[in-house]
């Protein structure tokens, strides 16, 4: 029992701590590794434990409990975006890996994975985007934000994905969601959201999207269900399958590109129906 081995083992356990937490250890190991996460020794200004800011390491049991709990909470109150987010993070491991591999295979996607751009109000030059011509991607995106009264900063941060790169892929997926609305020409009311979810389910295969796509239509009135089933739905699924991976596009460098041009490049057909962007209050009634 020499002192260096103990120190090196301690260091190793420190480095491996997050992986240990996700492994199939005894319950007591989980408590111990949780203790490790909170040790003040790690860094002087440790504003986060884990692999990235906001990361909370969890073991498979906790992930399962979180998935079930967040699923129930999200079903009871679909406006709890944090619960939808947690559901996506805890169930999406395989789908995220497939997405990441697709991104790596695409040259633009690879650039995104290395440069890690984030879509925030602080990073967008709104005045410049407003001055772009109508029909350009940037201008249409701004119009979408204004019409639907949303902001790109309302996305919840990723917490429960235990891989730094996959966490970024998840974050990118969330931030691209609004851009997808613009690309598909869908507003943020219930019908538009369901259509986008069908597209995302077909493209990404994330279980949360599939669940949302399956259960979303249950909350639609019959008048809205009809266009979904007849034209919007098949269009969304077809395009989801045939389109290029939407996460692989460096949108931040394509604001000047025309929307039609971008749709062609991504192999997305223009929407068969135009749905007006109604206010949030009206959509709650539908």
């Amino acid at each position, binding site marked *: 029992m020499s*002192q260096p081995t103990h120190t090196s083992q301690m260091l190793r356990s420190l480095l491996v701590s997050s992986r240990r937490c996700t492994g199939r250890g005894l319950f007591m190991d989980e408590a111990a590794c949780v203790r490790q996460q909170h040790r003040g020794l790690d860094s002087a200004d440790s504003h986060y434990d884990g692999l990235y800011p906001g990361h909370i390491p969890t073991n498979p049991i906790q992930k399962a409990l979180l998935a079930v709990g967040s699923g129930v909470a999200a079903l009871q109150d679909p406006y709890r975006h944090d619960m939808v987010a947690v559901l996506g993070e805890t169930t999406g491991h395989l789908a995220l890996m497939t997405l990441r591999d697709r991104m790596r295979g695409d040259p633009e996607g690879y650039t995104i994975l290395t440069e890690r751009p984030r879509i925030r109000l602080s990073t967008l030059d709104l005045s410049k985007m407003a001055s772009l011509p109508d029909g350009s991607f940037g201008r249409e995106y701004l119009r979408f934000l204004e019409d639907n009264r949303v902001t790109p900063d309302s996305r919840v941060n990723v917490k429960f994905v235990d891989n730094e790169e996959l966490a970024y892929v998840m974050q990118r997926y969330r931030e691209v969601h609004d851009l997808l609305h613009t690309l598909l020409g869908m507003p943020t009311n219930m019908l538009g959201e369901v259509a986008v979810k069908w597209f995302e389910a077909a493209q990404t295969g994330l279980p949360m999207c599939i669940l949302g796509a399956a259960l979303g239509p249950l909350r639609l009135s019959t008048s809205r269900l009809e266009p979904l089933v007849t034209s919007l739905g098949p269009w969304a699924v077809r395009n989801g399958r045939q389109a290029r991976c939407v996460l692989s596009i460096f949108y931040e460098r394509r604001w000047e590109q025309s929307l039609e041009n971008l749709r062609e490049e991504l192999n997305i057909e223009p929407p068969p129906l135009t749905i007006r962007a109604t206010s949030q209050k009206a959509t709650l009634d539908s």
Partner: protein
Amino acid sequence: MAASIRLLARRIVRDASRNINSSVSGRIVRSSCPSNLSACRCFSDGATDKSTHFGFETVPEGEKAERVYKVFESVAQKYDVMNDAMSLGVHRLWKDMLLHVMNPQPGMRLLDVAGGTGDISFRFLDYVRSQQERVARRTARANQTPSWQEISTSYTPPTEGIEMETEARESRAVVCDINKEMLKVGKQKAESMGVSSGLSWVVGDAEELPFDDDQFDVYTIAFGIRNVTHIDLALQEAVRVLKPGGRFMCLEFSKVTNPLLSRLYDAYSFQMIPVLGEVIAGDWKSYQYLVESIRKFPDQETFKRMIEEAGFFSVRYHNLTGGVVALHSGFKL
């Protein structure tokens, strides 16, 4: 650096010999944790800032109060819902037990420290009122078949009624908490329950109470004392504000003695409770802190000694739910 490694090694040997767990890696991880924490404390004790524990983290003392404040500020809205979810409603039984042991009589004055959402105070007022009703019913029953002498001697119903009312007015509960959000939630609860008389809400620090000496008959602190930075100061304040003959009562999570139950309890605490916190309240970290702070609190005997050191007599504790919760009680003479 070398000195701390030697200290670490010594502690690891000690802990390893005490440890019952068979898994080698588990032992290293587990034994390195407490020794590392104590090594950390050795570093910081030499420095100017004294440090204390915040869950399993080590923070400077000045910071702990602020961080605890933030935790309770964020959980205040869902505090009662979370209590029911985490304990499956058993916390109500624990609080009922506290009142049962306290057995308050009409006219008593209660100080409920860290009372937050007012659970103990509401129960106190209910208990006192039901006591009064019981007394009233007994006297009414006694008056059913009285003899002539009894009727003549007891023929002073108006004054009796006034006496009882003054007693009712005298039974007062003061809810004191350092956190304004928790008090706000408590006040809303009181309003919705229609309880207003005999209840007051005061913002105050348990280590420095805003009350005069010898004011209260009973001092309670339910599930709050583990969040106080200096427990001994809180106990000294309790001695100060209690009347001679007053009673100190503390409900707090404590050490489970049964090893099987202890493992189940640990598993439940660390697996389920933060998950519940995330799903119901949207706040994992606060509930992580809550379950960690339970582990850092001294066990039943140590706490009993601390209470005795503060100046209380006849200190006893009852274990509830196998030691998950302990009810400590002491008297000021």
